[in-house]
């Protein structure tokens, strides 16, 4: 009897180990594939020309493979969208975790999370058909398909991530800290600002960075609303073409294993490096600033 239980235990452990191992192995193989298909382009152009070249004309003769405007586009769209998403996301989280009455929270929270359930193509369509003409009229700009519009749409997409992860972080601050602060005569506002936020800062930072890495990798929205001009933006109302948009628009018709194909995979590598960095930073912050116990605040 005891033996049977033990062997069942062992068996389960092995099954779970192989499942976990399989997902890691698959991820690793995808990475290997990405590098295998992307690196050959550097036999045609140098890494410097690829990263800092100003012209992206992969199909003309001779072709130009410079992705600097695309990198700038991705970075600026992500940065601008965090300007919208971080305050909105974090403040919503604070409201939900600390201020809202139970009934309000029960309505607001699922609504915010519903935003995450919207498929990106729907958000893109909304940006293209509703927001773009609106921006055009209000700001009197030549086109509403631009950096500002796509940053706004991406903010919609990263708010749920930022909000729900931050809320978890804030919610899990030990009640002792909060009660202690209130007992010492601090107001609710002071408690939130001086005690709860510092105590949950690592969780909030992780939430923000994960939200940003979602924004930088998002494809459909930027393909539809960013405009797609392959030049360095002059203002926040310039049309831009972020990295994923280029891959999505061109991959289907790039000749298999041609230079253009390799170049698109190399763009994939650049994106991969970006998100990897974001995740490493998130991990670092989560460990370094983790609030352990109540004494160290």
């Amino acid at each position, binding site marked *: 009897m005891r033996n049977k239980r033990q062997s069942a235990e062992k068996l389960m452990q092995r099954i779970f180990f192989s499942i976990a191992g399989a997902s890691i192995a698959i991820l690793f193989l995808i990475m290997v594939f990405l590098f295998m298909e992307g690196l050959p382009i550097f036999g045609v152009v140098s890494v410097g020309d690829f990263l800092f070249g100003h012209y*992206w004309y992969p*199909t003309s003769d001779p072709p130009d493979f410079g992705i600097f405007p695309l990198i700038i586009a991705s970075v600026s769209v992500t940065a601008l969208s965090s300007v919208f998403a971080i305050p909105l996301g974090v403040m919503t989280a604070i409201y939900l975790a600390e201020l809202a009455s139970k009934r309000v929270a029960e309505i607001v929270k699922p609504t915010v999370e519903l935003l995450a359930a919207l498929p990106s193509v729907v958000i893109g369509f909304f940006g293209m058909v509703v927001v773009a003409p609106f921006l055009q009229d209000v700001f009197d700009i030549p086109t509403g398909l631009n950096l500002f519009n796509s940053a706004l749409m991406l903010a919609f997409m990263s708010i749920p991530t930022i909000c729900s992860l931050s809320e978890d972080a804030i919610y899990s601050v030990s009640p002792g800290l909060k009660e202690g602060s209130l007992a010492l005569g601090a107001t609710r506002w002071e408690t939130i600002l001086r005690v709860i936020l510092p105590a949950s800062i690592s969780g909030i930072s992780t939430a923000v960075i994960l939200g940003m890495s979602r924004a930088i990798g998002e494809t459909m929205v930027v393909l539809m609303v960013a405009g797609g001009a392959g*030049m360095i933006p002059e203002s926040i109302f310039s049309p831009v073409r972020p990295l994923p948009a280029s891959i999505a628009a061109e991959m289907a018709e790039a*000749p298999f294993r041609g230079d253009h194909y390799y170049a698109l995979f190399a763009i994939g590598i650049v994106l991969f490096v970006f998100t990897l960095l974001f995740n490493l930073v998130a991990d670092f912050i989560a460990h370094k600033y983790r609030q352990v116990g109540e004494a160290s605040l």
Partner: protein
Amino acid sequence: MKKVSNLLAMAVGLAMVVNVSAASAANIVMKGSTTVLPIAQEVAEAYMKENPDTKITISGGGSGNGIKAIIDGTTDIGNSSRFIKDKEVKLAVEKGTYPVPFAVAYDCIIPVVHPSNNLSDISMDQLKAIYQGKIRNWKEIGGPDKEIVVISRDTSSGTYEVWEGKVMKKERVYPGALLQASNGAVVTGVAKNENAIGYIGIGYLNDQVKALTVGGIEGTKETTLNGKFPVSRALYMFTRGWPDGDTAKFLNYVMHPDQGQKYVEKSGYVPLY
């Protein structure tokens, strides 16, 4: 509704890998131009429905690859959106084969603007200057004092290829041009922006956008077929030598006005008749 379906088509198109293949015994293999691909798919589907024992395998890869496959003998039919080059004919003859071209459809690209635009005709030179970024304001060509929003296609599309070849004469479209990934998206982009100019395949024209005449010539089926409309070209299917057997039967089907040519129009191109 059309707009919605265009967008859906765009999404589906993006998600799809170009390779539409089916494994089987007695079959016809087609390779090449992604411009010809929609026609090939539509016609092949209909053909296979009528001839269930024939299987047709289609893949993309571009015109150059299609012709190369004909030369190397790795395909029965090579799709191409351009005529074969002298160099390629020479190479084929050296390898002991003679490629035979069949024009199966015409591609006609029409410049479009917002319906409120008072412009109705544009010259090839003006189009080129606009897409080079040399003309940036509508008032330079007789319109209102508004910046021109130039909408172009992704550089790997067949539509862009025609535009680059016929209008730009191999010059580059300037980097400030907006990029859209499908004909449908260009229509939406132009319909939603009164400062915009774009170009689309003739099959995508609708009343949300206004078609411009080019040098006084309207882009229609007739002007495409008689060669008057400047932004048009023939689309080809190449075979290794004169086709026989299943390949010949299929090509006959493609060229037949009531069979294959019906689907040409459905895919947004100009049929032969």
